[in-house]
Structure formats: structure tokens, C-alpha cells
């Protein structure tokens, strides 16, 4: 089974082709360049390099959120277009879950964190001691302080991944003895991990049609969504 996967959910962008559990090809860039300019050339290069035609793909996967507003739309629009054109199934992967697949075979809890700004993160927790990451909570948006108090209840090693990992590590390393920062090479979302997460969804029959594929934005808690400073008068 051939899975094509794409990720444009944050600053980096990547595409990968995984066939029966083997990464046949993967392109990853982490520059300030715009995904709308880099994604399709990477897709083209990937298919040419691995000598596979898009029509031979069994499932197209994409990280659907959480993530950047524009970034998610670029990746999803591209996958929507390809699956519409070739009439293929899609797998909508949680960005946070995909990152848990960067780390397997560790007896630990993966704490996936993406920077949502203003001391908030998008987060989910996964136990990775088994064959596949076991989800411990739904994807959510919360204050870093709130996350710290939740993590106090975990005795296992906790490994931080995601673009909020550095930020969280700085805040948590003093307070939590069992917190670790993942290595740079496995810290960020990768399309190959998206493909592995998609494989599990495909096995469970959790697949979508092109038109069902949508971004999954997470809402911040009400208190954090207040834009106006209390003292400031809105004089418009």
C-alpha cells in the first residue's frame, strides 16, 4: 500500500511517500519561504524521484490541524485537489498525533506542543510504550501553566516534541524532573510520520473523501480569546 503525505501545518513543510511501512522518499524544508511556493515543486520532485505516479497512490494523507491558519489551508487544498483529480481516499491526521510517530519504542509519554502564542499551546499526550502511540487526551489548546499542573501526575519520562517544545522546556525543566526535550531531528512534524499515522487510520477505515477533508482549528479557551486589554477603551 502506497501512502502520500504532506505537512504544511507550521513553519516547516514536508512531503513523503511511504510504501508498506518503508519511507521511499521524503522532502523536508524549514525556511521562511512560503508553503504556497514550495509545496507543489516538492510534490512534483517526490513523485519523479520515487518513480511513482499519483494515480498509483492508495491514500493521500495530510496534517489537518492544529496549526497555522494559512499553512493548514495550503496543505489541505493541495491534497483536496490531488484526491479530487485522482478520485482517491484521504486521511485527515492530527498534527499532534503525527509528531508522536516521530518517537516510538521509548517507554515514555510524548507531550506534543505547538506554540499558539500568548503563553498558550496546542497539545495532546500520547503513551508510546506500545506498538503504536496511545492517545491519552484529545487535541486541545491550553495555557502552559495548566499543562504543567497536569503533567505533574505523570511518573514516566515525558518527551517534548513540536515547535512549542523549546518554549515549554524552558518553563518546565525547573518544575518537572521527568521532562525531556526531543532531539532536533525528531522534534518537528514530518510528512513520513503523518503517513504512518494515516496508515493506522486507513486500517481502521477512518478515511474521508476529498470534499470531506477540512482543516481542524482548535478554539482557545474563552478567557484567552479576549483581545481587548481591560484598561484600554475601544474608541472607534
Amino acid at each position: 500500500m502506497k501512502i502520500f503525505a504532506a505537512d504544511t501545518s507550521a513553519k516547516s513543510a514536508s512531503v513523503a511517500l511511504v510504501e508498506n511501512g518503508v519511507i521511499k522518499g521524503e522532502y523536508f524544508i524549514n525556511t521562511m519561504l512560503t508553503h504556497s511556493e514550495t509545496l507543489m515543486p516538492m510534490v512534483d520532485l517526490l513523485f519523479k524521484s520515487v518513480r511513482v505516479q499519483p494515480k498509483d497512490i492508495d491514500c493521500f494523507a495530510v496534517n489537518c490541524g492544529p496549526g497555522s491558519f494559512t499553512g493548514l489551508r495550503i496543505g489541505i487544498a493541495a491534497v483536496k485537489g490531488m484526491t479530487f483529480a485522482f478520485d482517491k481516499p484521504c486521511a485527515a491526521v492530527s498534527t499532534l498525533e503525527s509528531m508522536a510517530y516521530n518517537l516510538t519504542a521509548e517507554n515514555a509519554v510524548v507531550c506534543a506542543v505547538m506554540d499558539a502564542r500568548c503563553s498558550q499551546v496546542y497539545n495532546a499526550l500520547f503513551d508510546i510504550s506500545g506498538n503504536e502511540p496511545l492517545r491519552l487526551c484529545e487535541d486541545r489548546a491550553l495555557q502552559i501553566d495548566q499543562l504543567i499542573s497536569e503533567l505533574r501526575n505523570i511518573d514516566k519520562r515525558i518527551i517534548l516534541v513540536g515547535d512549542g517544545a523549546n518554549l515549554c522546556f524552558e518553563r518546565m525543566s525547573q518544575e518537572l524532573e521527568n521532562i525531556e526535550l526531543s532531539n532536533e531531528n525528531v522534534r518537528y512534524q514530518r510528512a513520513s510520520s503523518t503517513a504512518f499515522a494515516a496508515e493506522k487510520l486507513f486500517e481502521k477505515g477512518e478515511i474521508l473523501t476529498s470534499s470531506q477533508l477540512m482543516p481542524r482549528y482548535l478554539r482557545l479557551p474563552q478567557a484567552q480569546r479576549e483581545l481587548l486589554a481591560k484598561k484600554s477603551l475601544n474608541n472607534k
Partner: protein
Amino acid sequence: MTVFKSTDLNQTEQLGKRIADALTGTEVIAYFGGLGMGKTTLTRAIVEALGTEDNVSSPTFSIVNEYKSKYNVYHFDMYRVESWEDLYSTGFFDYLDTGVLIVEWSENIENALPENTVRITITKGENDSERIFEIEGLEI
């Protein structure tokens, strides 16, 4: 905090140049001050000092204008931004750290501004053509 008084366009252009010279490329500049205070005029002065050939205009309807210059400059108008979802869907958070963001009507998104934001408060001076600029967070 730097206080700068301007009585004409020429002086505002000088202020724009001083601000432009102090930038390193990823600042957020937030304006506070009501209608007709000269926010767009100051923005034009800053961006022209950065060497743009683009036309600088108020992004009231487009929400964000993009100018190519020494740095990428993203010029926002938050007048019609009323909720966190509105702000998120402007791509504001995606633009942070990728260039200089200049934000009109920052009052509307004050809680979402990064900690190191450069704040420029504009008030009227003694007469109609005089403006007082209070600049916090940037040495000019």
C-alpha cells in the same frame, strides 16, 4: 520612551527614517491613536525609508498589505477585527517573525501583541497639524 513632535510631513518623514534605521527586520510596531492621526502617513515614511517601490496605502479593506523593501513589511489594519477567530484568520500569527509587522488600530488586539512590541502612541498637539509620537520599545 522617545517623544517626537511633528508639525509637518517633512518631520514625520524624518521620524520614519529614524524608526526604519533602528529596525532589525522582525519587529511588531503597534499604533495607538484614533482616526486621522497620521498612522498611514508614518507607515509610508517608514516603508519608503526602507526602500520600497510599492504604493503604501491604508489596508482598511484588505486587512493586510504586503510591501517589499529591505525587509518584508506587513501592514495591518485591525479596525474590523473583533474576535480571536478574526485575528487568527488574518494570518497575523503566521506573519510574526517573518518580517516587520506594522499594526493600525492595535487597540483592538492589544492582548495578542507579543511582549516586545514597539508601541507608538499618536496624539494631537497644540494645533491641528501637530502630532506627538510617543515611542516605546525601540531606541531611535
